[in-house]
């Protein structure tokens, strides 16, 4: 008994001295996320990080996405919470950054911020103090996903202009093929459809004018784009106003529709469900040849550091690791989601295409600019486009309603 105790004490002392000489004591970070499905990827990343930083261990914990925000805010409000936090972007980031729960990041504590484009950092910036609060992890885009086989079988090429798009849709319909599998019964799908199909017709200049207040949503560019959308909706899924998101996905996955206007994130999902699909992507068609073709992009979220953590140095080391091109490359190739980090090497050809298209992009407007107050621009756009496509209001009325809602809080529209 005495002997065992002595051995144990000796071992403990030796261990303490060893760890002291090796790299301080072990620091354990907790890292919260809502991405249960990416757990294997993150475990792998943590191993790589530990190879470089043997003194730090990271415990990865996930919560269901629908409860994540609530659980996180509750923990942070109680002064607890993890050391490293996966957070969302834009308005959603503000709900936890505004009360001061997150550590501000800058070029001093995270030099790797230089690896990111401005728009990506803007997504993780608090508007009130202009500081960055998280390292962005993924860019998403709204565009058109198409079934290459259906296009080839019918001798079709991705359309450049809106007229070509209409002609193509009509040609497909004449052959009894659904041109689009999209439906509008799920509210948020109306916003993705607008982003995927109308971005080129709206244009970067329209976005700049909205931001500066030179134009509002009753602008002819917006109204006429909505009218075009109404026009092309005749080529959506049969009974499209009653077709919800999963049904529209299934229609496309089953190869029973040629195109799906929506997110770049759909591609990996479609391929998982039907690996035989040969898919491609193209940007929203332009009004007249020569105009710039655009996709609508936004950033999903980022990795932040808890302002109250006692392990700030270790947490910053981990977050800096998550901002390196090596990490971005692993993220992009494993999760088939485009990391915004500059200088990554992309293997998947469709992700390469998305990255190339993203060089000409406007913001996914309502998410990026108008999700900070009620009524959110997204909710207004979704319900009014849904109503317009159901034939219950004109494009002019839809635009006026959207504008009226945003003008209740958006100063540039109140002049």
């Amino acid at each position, binding site marked *: 008994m005495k002997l065992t105790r002595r051995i144990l004490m000796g071992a403990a002392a030796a261990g303490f001295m060893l760890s002291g000489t090796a790299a301080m004591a072990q620091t354990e970070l907790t890292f919260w996320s809502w991405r249960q499905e990416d757990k294997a990827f993150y475990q792998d990343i943590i191993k790589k990080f530990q190879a470089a930083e043997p003194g730090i261990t990271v415990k990865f914990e996930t919560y269901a996405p629908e409860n994540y*925000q*609530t659980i996180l*805010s*509750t923990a*942070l*409000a109680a002064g607890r919470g993890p050391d490293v936090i996966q957070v*969302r972007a*834009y*308005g*959603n980031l503000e*709900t*936890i950054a*505004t*009360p001061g729960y997150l550590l501000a990041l800058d070029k001093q504590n995270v030099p790797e911020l230089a690896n990111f484009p401005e728009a990506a950092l803007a997504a993780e910036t608090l508007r009130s103090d202009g500081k960055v609060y998280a390292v962005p992890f993924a860019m998403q885009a709204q565009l058109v996903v198409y079934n290459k086989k259906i296009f080839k079988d019918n001798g079709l090429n991705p359309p450049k202009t809106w007229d070509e798009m209409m002609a193509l849709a009509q040609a497909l319909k004449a052959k009894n093929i659904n041109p689009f599998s999209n*439906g*509008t*019964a*799920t*509210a*948020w799908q109306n*916003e993705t459809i607008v982003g995927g199909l109308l971005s080129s017709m709206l244009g970067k200049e329209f976005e700049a004018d909205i931001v500066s207040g030179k134009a509002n949503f009753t602008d002819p560019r917006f109204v006429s784009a909505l009218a075009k959308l109404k026009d092309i909706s005749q080529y959506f*899924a*049969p*009974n*499209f*106003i*009653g*077709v*919800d998101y999963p*049904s529209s996905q299934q229609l496309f996955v089953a190869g029973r529709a040629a195109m799906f206007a929506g997110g770049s994130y759909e591609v990996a999902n479609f391929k998982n469900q039907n690996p035989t699909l040969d898919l491609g992507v193209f940007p929203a068609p332009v009004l007249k040849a020569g105009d710039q073709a655009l996709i609508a992009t936004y950033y999903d979220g980022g990795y932040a550091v808890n302002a109250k953590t006692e392990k700030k140095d270790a947490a910053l080391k981990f977050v800096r690791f998550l901002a390196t091109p090596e990490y971005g490359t692993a993220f992009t190739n494993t999760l088939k989601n485009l990391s915004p980090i500059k200088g990554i090497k992309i293997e998947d050809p469709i992700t390469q295409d998305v990255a190339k298209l993203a060089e000409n992009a406007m913001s996914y407007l309502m998410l990026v600019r108008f*999700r*900070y*107050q*009620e*009524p*959110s621009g*997204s*909710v207004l756009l*979704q*319900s*009014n486009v*849904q*109503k317009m496509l*159901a034939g*219950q209001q004109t494009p002019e009325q839809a635009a006026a309603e959207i504008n009226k*809602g945003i003008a*209740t809080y958006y100063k540039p529209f109140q002049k």
Partner: protein
Amino acid sequence: MHASRQQPRTLKHRLWVAFLVVPPIVFMSLFVVYPILSAFAYAFYDWQGLARGPFVGLKNFKEVLFGVTMAPVVWNAFLHNVYALIALIIIQNGGGFLLAWLLYKEPFGFRFHRIAVFVPVVLSTIIVGFLWKLFLNPNFGIINQALYSLGLDSWAKPWLGDSSTALGALILANAWHFVGFPALVYLAGMQRIPTEIIEAARLDGTNEWQLLKNIVWPLVAPSTTILFTLLFIGAFNWFEIPYVMVGLDGSPFGSTDVLGLVFYRTAFGNQSASIQNFGLGSALATLLFLFIVVFASMLTLWLRRREIQF
């Protein structure tokens, strides 16, 4: 009854009573009374996400009832709750009453039917919601398929996507789910009616309609009291079926929006409006609670008065 009254009220007896009464009181205070009171208190503060801001008095209540942004949404949802209540009284409780009468008459296989009618009540609301969503799918759902095969093509509709049919479809799904409950309660009520009364009425030559209207309906009044009160509370707390079938937004364009969905969106945010506002959410919840308590009490008192002792 007599024996217990004569029992001396010893300390032991009192302790026994306390032992029985105290735990549920503590439990209720902790998990029912305290949350209600704290929600009431939350409603008087400004909130930044889940962090409590300054005291703002009645501002949140004012915003819920009269605010430019919030009030139209709230009143739109309130009207849908009222509509759902009226429709469910007729379809769910009325249907339950008729089903109960059929079961009461003990037709062939009534034992089987008595169980069959109640089975949907036992199913999870999530399952019922998904099931009906599939039934109502415009392209492959059995409802439109059935209409097409009957040659009633013009009746087929994109049910949940059409603003004129979506709320009705939710109400029907809800009625299908719960009709077994009023049926069972009414059946129990009918079986309490002394058979002499019904036999006497039959001898006097009443027809089926008169019998139902003048004898059975008044005599099952206690069942009606319970069912109407529960339905009233249920209709104004309606959440699960709309949430599962049309989502948090009351799609299409607010035509199925109900107060439960508005509350959830306001307090916890949704995918397309990530703003969480506990102050407004608590104010709405408090108003809804007061409304339900006041009207449910009035309804109960009024319904009690038409109950007949026999």
